[in-house]
Protein backbone atom coordinates (compact mmCIF):
# COMPACT_ATOMS: atom_id res chain seq x y z
CA UNK A 1 0.00 0.00 0.00
CA UNK A 2 2.85 2.38 0.85
CA UNK A 3 4.55 1.44 -2.45
CA UNK A 4 1.37 2.14 -4.41
CA UNK A 5 1.12 5.59 -2.87
CA UNK A 6 4.32 6.61 -4.61
CA UNK A 7 4.39 4.38 -7.66
CA UNK A 8 0.84 5.13 -8.90
CA UNK A 9 1.21 8.93 -9.20
CA UNK A 10 4.69 8.39 -10.60
CA UNK A 11 3.35 6.00 -13.23
CA UNK A 12 0.58 8.46 -14.21
CA UNK A 13 3.13 11.26 -14.41
CA UNK A 14 5.44 9.18 -16.61
CA UNK A 15 2.59 8.28 -18.99
CA UNK A 16 1.65 11.96 -19.35
CA UNK A 17 5.32 12.83 -19.85
CA UNK A 18 5.54 10.16 -22.55
CA UNK A 19 2.54 11.58 -24.43
CA UNK A 20 3.88 15.12 -24.22
CA UNK A 21 7.32 13.97 -25.38
CA UNK A 22 5.91 12.23 -28.45
CA UNK A 23 3.79 15.33 -29.10
CA UNK A 24 6.94 17.43 -29.37
CA UNK A 25 7.88 15.69 -32.59
CA UNK A 26 4.50 15.68 -34.28
CA UNK A 27 3.37 18.31 -36.72
CA UNK A 28 -0.10 19.59 -35.85
CA UNK A 29 -0.48 20.81 -39.43
CA UNK A 30 -0.47 17.22 -40.71
CA UNK A 31 -4.06 16.18 -40.30
CA UNK A 32 -4.52 12.57 -41.40
CA UNK A 33 -6.75 12.46 -44.47
CA UNK A 34 -9.94 10.41 -44.33
CA UNK A 35 -9.51 9.85 -48.08
CA UNK A 36 -6.64 7.37 -47.67
CA UNK A 37 -7.70 3.97 -49.09
CA UNK A 38 -10.81 5.57 -50.57
CA UNK A 39 -11.45 6.05 -54.31
CA UNK A 40 -10.10 9.36 -55.60
CA UNK A 41 -12.96 11.87 -56.04
CA UNK A 42 -14.22 12.02 -59.62
CA UNK A 43 -13.27 15.17 -61.48
CA UNK A 44 -13.32 16.50 -65.02
CA UNK A 45 -11.02 19.50 -65.40
CA UNK A 46 -9.71 21.42 -68.36
CA UNK A 47 -6.03 21.07 -69.17
CA UNK A 48 -3.64 23.90 -68.55
CA UNK A 49 -1.92 23.82 -71.92
CA UNK A 50 -4.94 22.85 -74.01
CA UNK A 51 -8.02 24.45 -72.44
CA UNK A 52 -10.30 22.72 -74.93
CA UNK A 53 -9.34 19.27 -73.61
CA UNK A 54 -10.30 17.78 -70.25
CA UNK A 55 -8.87 15.13 -68.00
CA UNK A 56 -11.05 12.90 -65.83
CA UNK A 57 -10.24 10.52 -63.00
CA UNK A 58 -11.28 7.63 -65.24
CA UNK A 59 -8.58 8.56 -67.80
CA UNK A 60 -5.89 7.56 -65.31
CA UNK A 61 -7.31 4.09 -64.56
CA UNK A 62 -4.86 1.22 -64.90
CA UNK A 63 -1.75 3.09 -63.90
CA UNK A 64 -0.16 4.27 -60.70
CA UNK A 65 0.12 8.06 -60.72
CA UNK A 66 0.86 11.05 -58.54
CA UNK A 67 -1.40 14.06 -58.26
CA UNK A 68 0.60 17.12 -57.29
CA UNK A 69 -1.47 20.10 -56.14
CA UNK A 70 0.40 23.36 -56.69
CA UNK A 71 -0.15 27.01 -57.51
CA UNK A 72 1.91 29.84 -58.92
CA UNK A 73 1.11 31.90 -55.79
CA UNK A 74 2.35 29.14 -53.49
CA UNK A 75 5.77 29.85 -52.04
CA UNK A 76 6.67 26.41 -50.72
CA UNK A 77 5.83 24.91 -54.12
CA UNK A 78 9.11 26.40 -55.29
CA UNK A 79 10.90 24.34 -52.65
CA UNK A 80 9.63 20.99 -53.87
CA UNK A 81 9.67 21.80 -57.57
CA UNK A 82 13.28 20.79 -58.35
CA UNK A 83 12.53 17.36 -56.85
CA UNK A 84 9.56 16.96 -59.17
CA UNK A 85 11.66 17.95 -62.17
CA UNK A 86 14.21 15.33 -61.14
CA UNK A 87 11.47 12.74 -60.67
CA UNK A 88 10.11 13.48 -64.14
CA UNK A 89 13.57 12.87 -65.64
CA UNK A 90 13.79 9.48 -63.89
CA UNK A 91 10.53 8.54 -65.62
CA UNK A 92 9.30 6.27 -62.82
CA UNK A 93 5.74 7.43 -62.40
CA UNK A 94 3.51 9.92 -64.25
CA UNK A 95 2.82 13.08 -62.28
CA UNK A 96 -0.32 15.07 -62.98
CA UNK A 97 -0.17 18.70 -61.88
CA UNK A 98 -3.25 20.38 -60.50
CA UNK A 99 -3.02 24.16 -60.59
CA UNK A 100 -5.11 25.03 -57.53
CA UNK A 101 -7.02 28.34 -57.57
CA UNK A 102 -4.64 29.67 -60.15
CA UNK A 103 -5.03 31.81 -63.23
CA UNK A 104 -4.21 29.96 -66.41
CA UNK A 105 -1.64 32.53 -67.61
CA UNK A 106 0.09 32.68 -64.21
CA UNK A 107 0.33 28.90 -64.10
CA UNK A 108 1.74 28.66 -67.63
CA UNK A 109 4.31 31.37 -66.94
CA UNK A 110 5.35 29.70 -63.69
CA UNK A 111 5.94 26.36 -65.42
CA UNK A 112 7.95 28.11 -68.14
CA UNK A 113 10.36 29.66 -65.63
CA UNK A 114 10.58 26.76 -63.17
CA UNK A 115 10.38 23.80 -65.54
CA UNK A 116 7.43 21.55 -66.30
CA UNK A 117 7.68 18.11 -64.65
CA UNK A 118 4.06 17.17 -65.32
CA UNK A 119 2.78 14.62 -67.79
CA UNK A 120 -0.34 16.75 -67.88
CA UNK A 121 -1.54 19.80 -66.01
CA UNK A 122 -5.11 20.58 -65.12
CA UNK A 123 -6.66 23.75 -63.71
CA UNK A 124 -8.97 23.95 -60.72
CA UNK A 125 -9.81 27.62 -60.91
CA UNK A 126 -12.48 27.85 -58.20
CA UNK A 127 -10.96 25.20 -55.92
CA UNK A 128 -13.99 22.89 -56.06
CA UNK A 129 -11.94 19.79 -56.86
CA UNK A 130 -9.47 20.86 -54.17
CA UNK A 131 -12.29 20.70 -51.62
CA UNK A 132 -13.26 17.22 -52.84
CA UNK A 133 -9.66 16.10 -52.33
CA UNK A 134 -9.56 17.71 -48.88
CA UNK A 135 -6.76 20.07 -49.90
CA UNK A 136 -5.95 22.63 -47.24
CA UNK A 137 -2.24 23.30 -47.54
CA UNK A 138 -0.70 23.60 -50.99
CA UNK A 139 1.49 21.83 -52.04
CA UNK A 140 -0.02 18.40 -51.51
CA UNK A 141 0.80 15.18 -53.31
CA UNK A 142 -1.45 12.13 -53.63
CA UNK A 143 -0.34 8.61 -54.62
CA UNK A 144 -3.17 6.95 -56.56
CA UNK A 145 -3.13 3.29 -57.54
CA UNK A 146 -4.25 1.44 -60.68
CA UNK A 147 -7.81 1.10 -59.39
CA UNK A 148 -8.03 4.82 -58.72
CA UNK A 149 -7.71 4.51 -54.94
CA UNK A 150 -5.75 7.12 -52.96
CA UNK A 151 -2.98 5.30 -51.10
CA UNK A 152 -0.94 8.10 -49.61
CA UNK A 153 -1.02 11.84 -49.15
CA UNK A 154 1.92 14.12 -48.59
CA UNK A 155 0.95 17.40 -46.97
CA UNK A 156 3.35 20.24 -47.62
CA UNK A 157 6.39 20.20 -49.87
CA UNK A 158 7.90 16.90 -50.98
CA UNK A 159 11.28 16.15 -49.49
CA UNK A 160 14.05 13.91 -50.84
CA UNK A 161 13.56 11.70 -47.77
CA UNK A 162 9.80 11.40 -48.19
CA UNK A 163 10.27 10.49 -51.86
CA UNK A 164 13.02 7.94 -51.28
CA UNK A 165 11.69 6.33 -48.13
CA UNK A 166 7.92 6.45 -48.54
CA UNK A 167 6.54 7.51 -51.89
CA UNK A 168 8.79 5.72 -54.38
CA UNK A 169 8.78 2.37 -52.53
CA UNK A 170 4.99 2.59 -52.35
CA UNK A 171 4.77 3.44 -56.06
CA UNK A 172 6.97 0.44 -56.98
CA UNK A 173 4.93 -1.86 -54.79
CA UNK A 174 1.68 -0.61 -56.34
CA UNK A 175 3.08 -0.92 -59.87
CA UNK A 176 4.00 -4.57 -59.22
CA UNK A 177 0.57 -5.52 -57.92
Amino acid at each position, binding site marked *: MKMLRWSLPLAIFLVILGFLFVGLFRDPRE*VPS*PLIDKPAPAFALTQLHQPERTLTTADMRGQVWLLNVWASWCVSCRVEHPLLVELAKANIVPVIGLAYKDKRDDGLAWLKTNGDPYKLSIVDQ*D*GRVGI*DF*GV*YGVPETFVIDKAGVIRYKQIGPLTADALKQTILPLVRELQRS
Partner: protein
Amino acid sequence: MKLALVALLALLVTPSAWCDDALDTRLRSLENELRCLVCQNQTLAESNAPLAEDLRKEVRDLATGGKSDDEIRTYLVARYGDFVLYKPPVKSTTYVLWFGPFALLAGGAVAWWMLIRRRSRATGDAATLTESSTTAVARARVLLDE
Protein backbone atom coordinates in the same frame (compact mmCIF):
# COMPACT_ATOMS: atom_id res chain seq x y z
CA MET B 1 -53.32 54.39 -52.64
CA LYS B 2 -49.88 55.20 -51.38
CA LEU B 3 -50.51 53.30 -48.18
CA ALA B 4 -51.69 50.26 -50.13
CA LEU B 5 -48.52 50.36 -52.20
CA VAL B 6 -46.34 50.50 -49.10
CA ALA B 7 -48.26 47.63 -47.55
CA LEU B 8 -47.82 45.61 -50.73
CA LEU B 9 -44.10 46.34 -50.80
CA ALA B 10 -43.75 45.39 -47.15
CA LEU B 11 -45.54 42.13 -47.88
CA LEU B 12 -43.16 41.44 -50.74
CA VAL B 13 -40.03 42.27 -48.82
CA THR B 14 -40.61 40.86 -45.34
CA PRO B 15 -40.92 37.11 -45.91
CA SER B 16 -37.79 36.81 -48.04
CA ALA B 17 -35.78 38.96 -45.65
CA TRP B 18 -37.00 36.81 -42.78
CA CYS B 19 -36.00 33.66 -44.67
CA ASP B 20 -32.49 34.95 -45.29
CA ASP B 21 -32.17 35.85 -41.63
CA ALA B 22 -33.10 32.32 -40.60
CA LEU B 23 -30.57 30.89 -43.06
CA ASP B 24 -27.90 33.31 -41.88
CA THR B 25 -28.40 32.38 -38.23
CA ARG B 26 -28.29 28.71 -39.12
CA LEU B 27 -25.14 29.13 -41.20
CA ARG B 28 -23.48 31.21 -38.49
CA SER B 29 -24.06 28.59 -35.82
CA LEU B 30 -22.85 25.85 -38.18
CA GLU B 31 -19.74 27.81 -39.18
CA ASN B 32 -18.97 28.43 -35.52
CA GLU B 33 -18.58 24.71 -34.85
CA LEU B 34 -16.44 23.98 -37.91
CA ARG B 35 -12.70 24.39 -37.89
CA CYS B 36 -10.68 26.18 -40.55
CA LEU B 37 -7.84 23.83 -41.46
CA VAL B 38 -5.49 26.57 -42.56
CA CYS B 39 -5.42 28.55 -39.32
CA GLN B 40 -6.29 25.69 -37.06
CA ASN B 41 -7.45 27.58 -34.00
CA GLN B 42 -10.10 29.57 -35.79
CA THR B 43 -13.56 28.55 -36.80
CA LEU B 44 -14.85 28.75 -40.33
CA ALA B 45 -16.84 31.82 -39.28
CA GLU B 46 -13.80 33.71 -37.93
CA SER B 47 -11.17 32.84 -40.47
CA ASN B 48 -10.13 35.06 -43.35
CA ALA B 49 -8.16 32.30 -45.10
CA PRO B 50 -9.14 31.80 -48.75
CA LEU B 51 -10.03 28.17 -48.03
CA ALA B 52 -12.38 29.24 -45.21
CA GLU B 53 -14.03 31.64 -47.64
CA ASP B 54 -14.50 28.83 -50.17
CA LEU B 55 -15.82 26.49 -47.52
CA ARG B 56 -18.28 29.09 -46.22
CA LYS B 57 -19.56 29.44 -49.77
CA GLU B 58 -19.70 25.64 -50.10
CA VAL B 59 -21.63 25.32 -46.84
CA ARG B 60 -24.07 28.03 -47.97
CA ASP B 61 -24.58 26.32 -51.33
CA LEU B 62 -25.23 22.99 -49.62
CA ALA B 63 -27.65 24.59 -47.15
CA THR B 64 -29.62 26.42 -49.85
CA GLY B 65 -29.58 23.17 -51.84
CA GLY B 66 -31.65 21.63 -49.03
CA LYS B 67 -28.93 19.72 -47.15
CA SER B 68 -29.41 19.36 -43.40
CA ASP B 69 -26.75 20.43 -40.87
CA ASP B 70 -25.79 16.80 -40.30
CA GLU B 71 -25.42 16.17 -44.01
CA ILE B 72 -23.19 19.23 -44.33
CA ARG B 73 -21.05 18.02 -41.41
CA THR B 74 -20.75 14.57 -42.97
CA TYR B 75 -19.78 16.18 -46.28
CA LEU B 76 -16.91 18.07 -44.67
CA VAL B 77 -15.78 15.17 -42.46
CA ALA B 78 -15.56 12.93 -45.54
CA ARG B 79 -13.05 15.39 -47.03
CA TYR B 80 -11.12 16.79 -44.08
CA GLY B 81 -11.67 14.26 -41.28
CA ASP B 82 -13.11 14.65 -37.78
CA PHE B 83 -10.63 17.47 -37.21
CA VAL B 84 -13.02 19.94 -38.90
CA LEU B 85 -15.49 19.43 -36.08
CA TYR B 86 -14.87 21.46 -32.94
CA LYS B 87 -17.08 18.97 -31.12
CA PRO B 88 -15.55 15.54 -31.76
CA PRO B 89 -17.95 12.62 -32.32
CA VAL B 90 -18.34 9.94 -29.64
CA LYS B 91 -16.76 6.73 -30.96
CA SER B 92 -14.36 4.06 -29.78
CA THR B 93 -11.26 6.17 -30.50
CA THR B 94 -12.62 9.16 -28.59
CA TYR B 95 -13.98 7.35 -25.51
CA VAL B 96 -10.92 8.40 -23.48
CA LEU B 97 -11.43 11.99 -24.58
CA TRP B 98 -15.13 12.05 -23.71
CA PHE B 99 -15.21 9.90 -20.58
CA GLY B 100 -11.62 10.26 -19.33
CA PRO B 101 -12.32 13.47 -17.37
CA PHE B 102 -15.31 11.85 -15.61
CA ALA B 103 -13.22 8.76 -14.80
CA LEU B 104 -10.51 11.04 -13.38
CA LEU B 105 -13.11 12.92 -11.34
CA ALA B 106 -14.53 9.66 -9.95
CA GLY B 107 -11.01 8.37 -9.19
CA GLY B 108 -10.18 11.64 -7.44
CA ALA B 109 -13.38 11.46 -5.40
CA VAL B 110 -12.60 7.89 -4.28
CA ALA B 111 -9.02 8.86 -3.35
CA TRP B 112 -10.29 11.91 -1.43
CA TRP B 113 -12.88 9.84 0.43
CA MET B 114 -10.26 7.23 1.40
CA LEU B 115 -7.87 9.95 2.58
CA ILE B 116 -10.55 11.61 4.71
CA ARG B 117 -11.55 8.29 6.27
CA ARG B 118 -7.96 7.48 7.13
CA ARG B 119 -7.38 10.96 8.55
CA SER B 120 -10.50 10.91 10.73
CA ARG B 121 -9.39 7.52 12.09
CA ALA B 122 -5.94 9.01 12.79
CA THR B 123 -7.38 12.04 14.67
CA GLY B 124 -9.56 9.57 16.61
CA ASP B 125 -6.36 7.85 17.73
CA ALA B 126 -4.81 11.19 18.58
CA ALA B 127 -7.87 12.07 20.69
CA THR B 128 -7.54 8.89 22.76
CA LEU B 129 -3.83 9.63 23.07
CA THR B 130 -4.45 13.15 24.50
CA GLU B 131 -7.01 11.70 26.78
CA SER B 132 -4.53 9.25 28.22
CA SER B 133 -1.88 11.97 28.46
CA THR B 134 -4.25 14.23 30.45
CA THR B 135 -4.86 11.39 32.86
CA ALA B 136 -1.07 10.93 33.01
CA VAL B 137 -0.65 14.65 33.81
CA ALA B 138 -3.35 14.46 36.45
CA ARG B 139 -1.61 11.44 37.93
CA ALA B 140 1.72 13.28 37.90
CA ARG B 141 0.11 16.25 39.64
CA VAL B 142 -1.27 13.95 42.30
CA LEU B 143 2.21 12.45 42.72
CA LEU B 144 3.81 15.94 42.96
CA ASP B 145 1.23 17.10 45.48
CA GLU B 146 2.08 14.26 47.77
